[in-house]
């Protein structure tokens, strides 16, 4: 009987793996929460009360309350007249700008570092120290970097951008060197045998072969930095994070809700734009235009 059970699991390795993982995770989870599962009992009711009493309906005034010292022109109908001077618009646009700049700087700095960190291009004596630098940048979350930069240059967009740039370099660098190391060896070998220099190999082989990955990672990082920027803003006193922290402190949860919904739509739009941009670089989809219709159409 026992042997039969053992045999059953031996023949089903994936099932055994998933089951073991589940049991192990559950045990550690129970240990973490000290077995206080009963707390879940009223959780949904609590959430529902919070949602209907505090969060709903969202307070869209965040897109019409005029920020002092703002002189932007009036927004066209149907937007509120003060839309371009509203806290919501200023917060989101600042966050997007910060994400854009730090992703751009991050990409420009990380690519040369990732090339140096690739073991199929450079010897370990070069690659390993560069990898260590990249790991160092990744070790501290952007939030902690932000605290350092706030100390160095004070509150504001600059410290937030520097923090996000540094984190982006560490994160993108790792993704990039892994993509480069995963490239087929043959094109690199052919170029090396020709006697091309490493910089020529990078320009003629590595960049074209890994362009899909690089673009994809760049867009992912931008999307990530938009979300990251919301948190950094709390520390840096800028962007949507600043207003979120402000409203949370004042317990204006309906305004928080409005900002979160707006942020959710911004991320959705970025994701849609990413898919479109990516489709120009992935050759299988070169001639296929991405529309909402064929994104949701079953294949």
């Amino acid at each position, binding site marked *: 009987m026992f042997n039969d059970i053992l045999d059953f699991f031996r023949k089903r390795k994936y099932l055994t793996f998933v089951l073991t993982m589940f049991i192990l995770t559950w045990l550690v989870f129970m240990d973490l929460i000290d077995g206080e599962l009963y707390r879940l009992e009223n959780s949904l009711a609590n959430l529902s009360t919070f949602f209907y009493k505090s969060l709903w309906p969202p307070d869209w005034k965040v897109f019409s309350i005029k920020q002092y010292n703002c002189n932007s022109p009036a927004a066209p109908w149907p937007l509120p007249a003060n839309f371009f001077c509203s806290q919501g618009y200023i917060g989101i646009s600042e966050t997007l700008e910060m994400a854009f700049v730090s992703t751009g700087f991050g990409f420009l700095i990380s690519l040369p570092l990732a090339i140096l960190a690739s073991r199929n291009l450079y010897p370990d004596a070069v690659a390993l120290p560069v990898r260590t630098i990249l790991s160092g940048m990744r070790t501290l979350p952007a939030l902690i970097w932000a605290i350092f930069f706030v100390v160095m240059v004070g509150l504001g967009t600059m410290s937030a951008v520097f923090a996000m740039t540094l984190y982006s370099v560490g994160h993108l660098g790792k993704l990039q060197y892994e993509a480069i190391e995963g490239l087929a060896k043959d094109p690199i070998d*052919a*170029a090396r045998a020709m006697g091309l220099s490493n910089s020529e190999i990078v320009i003629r082989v590595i960049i074209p072969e890994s362009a899909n990955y690089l673009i994809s990672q760049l867009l992912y990082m931008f999307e990530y930095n938009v979300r990251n920027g919301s948190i950094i803003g709390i520390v840096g006193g800028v962007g949507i994070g600043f207003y979120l922290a402000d409203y949370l402190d004042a317990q204006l949860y309906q305004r928080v809700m409005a900002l979160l919904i707006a942020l959710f739509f911004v991320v959705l739009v970025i994701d849609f734009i990413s898919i479109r941009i990516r489709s120009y670089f992935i050759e299988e989809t070169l001639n296929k235009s991405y529309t909402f219709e064929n994104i949701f159409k079953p294949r």
Partner: protein
Amino acid sequence: MSNTISAQNLKIGYSKILAEINKFNIKQGEIVSIIGKSGIGKTTFLKTIANLINPIEGKLSIFESEPKKERGLIGYIPQKLGLVKHSSVFSNVLQGAVCEEPIWRSITGFHEQKTLGIVQDTIEIMGLKDKIDEPISKLSGGQQRRVAIARTMAQNPKIILADEFLSELDAKTAENVWKNMLNYVKEKNITLIIVEHNIEWAKLADRCFEMELKENKEYSSLEEIFNV
């Protein structure tokens, strides 16, 4: 006449010895084929000549000196051709042609008119003019092989190393590709070393070597089968 490639008591491999080459002397313009079973060390030998792997023991000389990276000297066509799949035919052939110009031009993209002319001419010779802007992944196996040859031709090498580059092709296309290559190397007096599984193609070379693992030996050795 001095040897273009010369190897004596050469032991090759990665971490351990895979094959030994006791004597291998090739003169300029000779067409040489190497046959042998899979995994016996043929590709490793080509890579050693191409200076992609260092020999474990022994002496290998190219043009009477130690193998070194010399721009454009050796054209290497790997088994999977080594083309940049996401680039166009033009860009792949240009990769070979840049060997003829200074590195700064190759990096900045300010190519000489002469280089661009070489690329256009080579693509035309290989009958790929109408595919010049197509990405490699959209070409058939035969067309991809012709691009690989065009890239090597644009490089104007003295030695070409081709690793089973006729495999996976139907007989007619393989014959066509092989003829293109032979005409080119004979016309330019280039040394061609080709690793081939198909004995029929291997027989068309001037000299044929076989790499095989003999009884009671830990690694394979290379021996000449015929010299026309």
